């Protein structure tokens, strides 16, 4: 998958995981703090696993970037940067 499609895949997976885990998802805007999205740690863990399978990257493991993403925009960038 090319990096420009990452955004769609990431937001799709956010919605899928929230539905499966019975979580109420906040509107997905770039400035949304991840921890206010409605997903808990377990949901994020599942999300990162699903994205590794579908996008073929896991920037949490491979990135040398010293900071974790805080907002949804950071999160998408984190994945896009890892793929380029």
């Amino acid at each position, binding site marked *: 998958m090319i990096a420009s499609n990452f955004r769609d895949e990431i937001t799709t997976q956010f919605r899928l995981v929230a539905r499966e885990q019975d979580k109420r998802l906040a509107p997905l805007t770039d400035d949304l703090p991840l*921890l206010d999205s409605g997903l808990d*740690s377990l949901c994020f863990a599942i999300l990162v696993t699903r994205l590794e399978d579908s996008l073929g990257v896991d920037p949490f493991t491979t990135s040398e970037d010293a900071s974790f993403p805080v907002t949804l925009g950071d999160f998408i960038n984190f994945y896009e940067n890892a793929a380029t």
Partner: protein
Amino acid sequence: MKTQQPNQISLWNALTALGDLSGRSMWGASACFGVPDMVAGSVLGGRGSEFYGRSVLVATTEQLTAIAALIELDGLASRIVLCPPDLPVEHLSFVAQIAAADAIISDRLETESDLPLFVPSGGLVPCVHDRSAQHQTEWVLLTSGTTGNPKLVVHTLASLTGAIEPGKLAAPGITWSTFYDIRRYGGLQIFLRAALTGTSLVLSSAHESTAQFLARAGAHGVTHISGTPSHWRRALMSPSAHRMAPDYIRLSGEIADQALLDQLRAFYPQARISHAFASTEAGVAFDIKDVLSGLHPDVINHTPGVEMKIKQGTLRIRSDRTASRYLNHECRPLKDKDGFVDTGDVLELRGDRYYFVGRRDGVINVGGLKVHPEEVEEVINRHPHVRMSLVRTRKNPIMGSLVIADVVLEAPQQSGSSDDHTIQRDILTLCRESLSAHKVPVSINFVPTLAVAETGKLIRRHA
């Protein structure tokens, strides 16, 4: 159980021996007790003496209430069973039976029990009865078992506090906190450390967000704080991570990887960072202070007060900090004949350091919570189309590990068929109905066969 051994050290004795504790407090999310008030007061309506010599289940909603009850009961009750907040209410009678409990202290509205129920008050009232220690109270902690019923692990105050230097009042200005609930071993260590060194303590709450907790920790000036690697990853993803500036960060309960240690060091450059190995059964074993993942062999060979060895690949520990036994009759002995506890954690030497690579028994650690594969397999195997299943770990950078399942069907479906998807969905529904969320597999893979050993048991790989 030992009885009638007056003047033994108890939590209350230890607190009173520290001297002036004015200004020290224990903060919950919605309430706060001054430590001197807890030493002088009672959360049991001044009726603590009624629990003399009894085996008591403590199953309160709030950690603060549990702490006040612990200070009151230790040295008085013969046994205290500390029930974690997520203990399903249907397990209470099992726990009570195994612990031979004859009273329960609980404000959980749904608590149903045949035992005499004592509902603690929200506040402290004056306590007039003699509070000096009468018993060496057994402290019983719960840990997850393979069958779904918890295992009851017996400690004493002495074994729980073996890693804490006794009778030494900490320097003023130190405030401890922990992401853990104090009803779990990792959290209990921090409460006892705060209590025995006379520092203030900020408790977490299941009812507040990570951001709210971090802001509260910052507002109370937390200097020392502990949590699992999963707790810390979540903290680093919060915009409120900068609201606190701890001097000391401690990780335990899961493998601390180098990426996380580096991120913590970059985010909190002023903090000393250590990762510790401890478990409910084996106690506190060691602390690694060089901000590198894994451990140097010297730690195994030269940790004062703790003997360690690696046998058949797993870490074995002997010290006065280990638990003494399980209360459940069906459990294997907690220690071997030489007194070593087998942690079940597999260590591998790579270069000049040992690294934890998983569990010999296949137990999966999801964010510090243990998952026994057998418990999940039992649920999956209830599905009529399932012949057998193997639950195993998948590494995850957020929670350390997640649960996945390989499933052999009775009649193999055509790969990718719609029946496959229906069965997958039905298995997951079954799991969600029967298991806590962290035990539900994140993926179900259909496989043609699973390896079975000559013993007839599934072959489990540890990593």
